[in-house]
């Protein structure tokens, strides 16, 4: 393999890796865009990012490849998942478009943009690849560090300021001012002892086929206890009443068996009539 050829082509192994992982990356990207549930989108995106990390490594960006996995996939995507959980993990988006013409316009713009971008890349003379062999000779991390703390030191400092600002901003945005006075310990204990429920609240129901926090427990008289379900779930209306399921099943069974018996009787009766 000559030097010029090395500059413009890659090894066969990298080519195979690219063609396989590129498909995965595109599939992940499409999944992120098209999945109905935000959780699925986030997971697809995480997959794409891991693939990208591999591509970084393949391109000689070892430090970035690791950072991609640690920071992006590990931190940022987890942050996303966290917010998704906070907002409601079960909520599935409707993919039905509500703005007239939006999807067509978006598709058209994306197609045009993509075609133009690729045409631009194809049009540019990007035949010669120098490779990073020389740049990475002293180690990739050392090379980056040298650049960051010399050529890009101001940008680096400003980035630090940006991160602090972002941290403060996030706190300011999500912080809620307390509107009423916080209850003191005395008040809380008074409320506990003098309140409606001295003993602990009833536990959620435990049934033969159901054992979850959204299933209310049964009181001695057979009715369900709302108190046994978490207040948040109650507020969301996600209380699942399964107390009547068993009885309903039994009733259905009895009805079916009755019908079966009737049919048998009819058959024997008709046989007797024929005689």
């Amino acid at each position: 393999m000559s030097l010029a050829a090395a500059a413009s082509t890659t090894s066969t192994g990298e080519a195979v890796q690219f063609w396989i992982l590129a498909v995965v990356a595109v599939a992940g990207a499409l999944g992120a865009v098209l999945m109905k549930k935000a959780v699925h989108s986030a997971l697809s995106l995480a997959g794409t990012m891991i693939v990208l990390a591999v591509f970084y490594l393949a391109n000689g960006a070892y430090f970035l490849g690791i950072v991609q996995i640690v920071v992006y996939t590990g931190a940022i995507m987890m942050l996303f998942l966290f917010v998704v959980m906070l907002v409601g993990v079960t909520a599935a988006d409707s993919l039905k478009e509500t703005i007239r013409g939006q999807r067509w316009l978006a598709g058209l713009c994306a197609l045009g943009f993509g075609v133009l971008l690729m045409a631009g890349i194809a049009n540019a003379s990007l035949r010669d690849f120098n490779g990073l062999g020389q740049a990475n000779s002293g180690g990739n991390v050392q090379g980056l560090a040298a650049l960051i703390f010399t050529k890009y030191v101001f940008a680096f400092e400003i980035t630090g300021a940006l991160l602090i600002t972002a941290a403060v901003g996030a706190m300011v945005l999500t912080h809620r001012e307390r509107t009423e006075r916080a209850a003191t310990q005395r008040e809380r204990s008074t409320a506990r002892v003098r309140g409606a429920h001295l003993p602990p609240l009833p536990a959620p129901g435990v049934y033969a086929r159901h054992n979850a926090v959204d299933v209310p427990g049964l009181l001695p008289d057979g009715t369900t206890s709302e108190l046994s379900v978490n207040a948040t779930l109650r507020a969301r209306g996600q209380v699942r009443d399964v107390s009547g399921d068993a009885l309903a099943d039994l009733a259905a069974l009895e009805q079916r068996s009755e019908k079966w018996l009737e049919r048998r009787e009819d058959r024997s009766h008709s046989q007797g009539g024929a005689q």
Partner: protein
Amino acid sequence: MENLIGLLVLVPLLGAGVLLCGGRRLDSSAPWIGTLLAALSFVIGAVLFAGMLGRDGEDRELGTTVFSWVPVGDFRADVGFQLDQLSMTFVLLITGVGSLIHLYSIGYMAHDERRRRFFGYLNLFLAAMLLLVVADNYLLLYVGWEGVGLASYLLIGFWQHKPSAATAAKKAFLVNRVGDVGLSIAIMLMFTTFGTFAFGPVLEGADRAGEGKLTAIGLVLLLAACGKSAQVPLQSWLGDAMEGPTPVSALIHAATMVTAGVYLITRSGAIFDGAPDAQTAVVTVGAVTLLFGAIVGCAKDDIKKALAGSTMSQIGYMILAAGLGPIGYAFAIMHLVTHGFFKAGLFLGAGSVMHGMNDEVDMRRYGGLRSYMPVTFVTFGLGYLAIIGFPGLSGFFSKDKIIEAAFAKGGTEGWILGGTALLGAAITAYYMTRVMILTFFGEKRWQPDAAGEPPHPHESPRTMTVPMIVLAFGSVFAGGLFSLNDAFLNWLEPVTGHAEGHSPVTAVQVTAATMVVLFVGVALAWAQYGRAPVPVTAPRGNVLVRAARRDLLQDDVNHIVLVRGGEHLTRSLVYLDHTVVDGVVNGTAASVGGLSGRMRRLQNGFARSYAVSMFGGAAVLVAATLLMRAV
């Protein structure tokens, strides 16, 4: 001496102010105060006249600038007076006839509750008319011009409780306004042409201005004259103006104000001399009105309206003469003065007759009054003889000269104008004889008035008869006096100039012809009204008679041409306004609104829509970049 000119105007103005603002305690003395002040201004005029006679012909003009009225930069408008022979003639006519009519009004208006106001208006008229004739520039003349218009309006509508009088006043005012616009345009044109509107510079500079400009100024001046002097086509107001009290008709609508147009044309003679086309227009207007008024006068049964038609016709003579240029100016003014005498006398006589006949105006209900009102009969008769041009009386001299001058115009034009004037003289003889016979001769056709009261004709009081007698003297002798040694001609010559035309007919021939047509006219009238009995209600008559009774359809023409035309114009303008102007405005608004409505859709608040446009823009940018690189 110069200060007296200002006083001349101030005295009646003072009278108007005192009488109009004086309140009721002046009610009883008002007639005498008004008359006294009018007489005083006549005395001042006479003093000035005497002073003027004491000087030579060229030095007779007096001039004085009272104060600077509108001094703005180079623009100067002064209140200045100028008293030359022409103005003097008018001053004497106005104050003389005016005083007599004031005197007459004392008797005529004796029973009117608002006579204080009446005399105040009369004094106001005198002041305005005097201002008109002694002003030394066109702007001040315009003030007087508007002032007489106002006084005329107030006096025609004096009996404002009568809707007809109120309407007539409004009509006179509006028609006059058309003429006034002409005068104001003339003044503006003068200012742009000559840089001033004082008589002196304008008239001296006239021969240096282009003929086109002079023609334009002349035509708008003619329009002004037509409005004020009731000439065709602005003649329609004069007949209705007879709704005013008879002394008003005599003073304003016969003797003085309506002749202001003749004054204007004579005064602006230099302009017309430089504009032959404008002169042709003037003589045409004069000739047409001459016949028009005469024909209308023949058909009217209302004595005042018949006289109004006559006035129109006689002023037509004057305008015709004035349009002839230097050959005619002096005769126009001479006829104006004599006409002032006899027409005022005739109107006063008519007023006297009405006074005795329970305010009946229909001549068909008069008859045989000569023995009941001897003084009125005699004075009216002398006025009648004067107007038809009976030899030796005033009208004979003045009208004859005009007819002569018309022939002297020369060429076909001269023949046409002279023939028209002669025909007019014949018709004049006819309709005046008709008035005379219907009123004073024949059997009594008196009818009881609306209250069932039969009339008791009687002679009028002394205050009324004295002015009539004085005016009758004027009617008889003024013409002869003026013609003695061409006295009037020589008197006016420094102002108007004089030229002898080359008449194709001699003066004797003209006089003979006039006599013939005079006789024919009188004979015709006598044959129709003197011999045959006169029906009390007018027969229907043929088409011409009916048209003449309707003032030769002038109101109908005005209605169709101006009112209907105006309505159509307005309607089409409104249509234009609604479709084109509103269409443009509304269309602009609607298109902006529609565009906004559509643009608003873009601002739907959906961040994703904004993102699409942003992304589309990015795509376009990429495309542009690629294109630029490719080129």
